[in-house]
């Protein structure tokens, strides 16, 4: 799994690629905690290149959301493939997140 962070205006975009599971999710957590520790005003997690995610990945995103909310930051997800979105649905967490079809749509919502 690979994680890269880039900026677009006020948003920090976290691009995640590959499979997110118990072994790899700490790497995604490290990026999210780093951004929220720095009180990034908007964090957008681009999951369009994620092929698999288990509950540890979902839990890591929940943690990121909670950390951002603590200082009034925004936290959005984008680009979930149907199978990945189903993981959120079956974990009963789909409605907890702001989920967008793709990164441009999420960025537009942040403007």
């Amino acid at each position: 799994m690979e994680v890269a962070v880039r900026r677009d205006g006020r948003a920090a975009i976290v691009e995640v690629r590959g499979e997110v599971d118990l072994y790899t999710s700490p790497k995604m957590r490290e990026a999210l905690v780093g951004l929220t520790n720095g009180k990034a005003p908007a964090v957008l997690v681009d999951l369009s290149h994620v092929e698999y995610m288990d509950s540890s990945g979902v839990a890591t995103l929940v943690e990121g959301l909670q950390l951002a909310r603590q200082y009034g930051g925004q936290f959005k997800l984008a680009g979930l493939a149907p199978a990945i979105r189903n993981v959120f649905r079956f974990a009963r967490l789909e409605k907890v997140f702001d989920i967008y079809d793709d990164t441009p749509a999420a960025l537009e919502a942040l403007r």
Partner: protein
Amino acid sequence: MSESFRIELSSSPRLLQVVRAVVSQYGRLLALGEDETFRLKTAVDEACANVIRHSYGGDPGQPIVLTFTVSDDRLEILVRDFGTKPDPQRLKPQREDQAKPGGLGLPLILSVMDEVAYDLSPEKGSALRMVKYLRGRDGE
């Protein structure tokens, strides 16, 4: 007709991707379809991750034994560990020695499998038994 296979792995999180690859390949062999195979892969992954986190407390060197058995119209997957048993207080009993599992992965597992139950009867560890009914398969 019945067929089965068994794999034993150590409780190392990085081996989860190997487990998923095996389940994916077996799902294709059973002609489960792409979506169903993905969901089955998720259920087995979550079950193994629960063993790693809870039964073995993150110790990566402990044994996990997965047994896959297909007979008639059902696939049974047994996830056996030899660590700490699930806390019975967190489990809703189904039978005297069985109960549903708990945790964040539970809704995922239950959304995929038709039967899910812990067997707490082994002297050491426990066994999670998951059954998927194989309706409307394309293959065979």
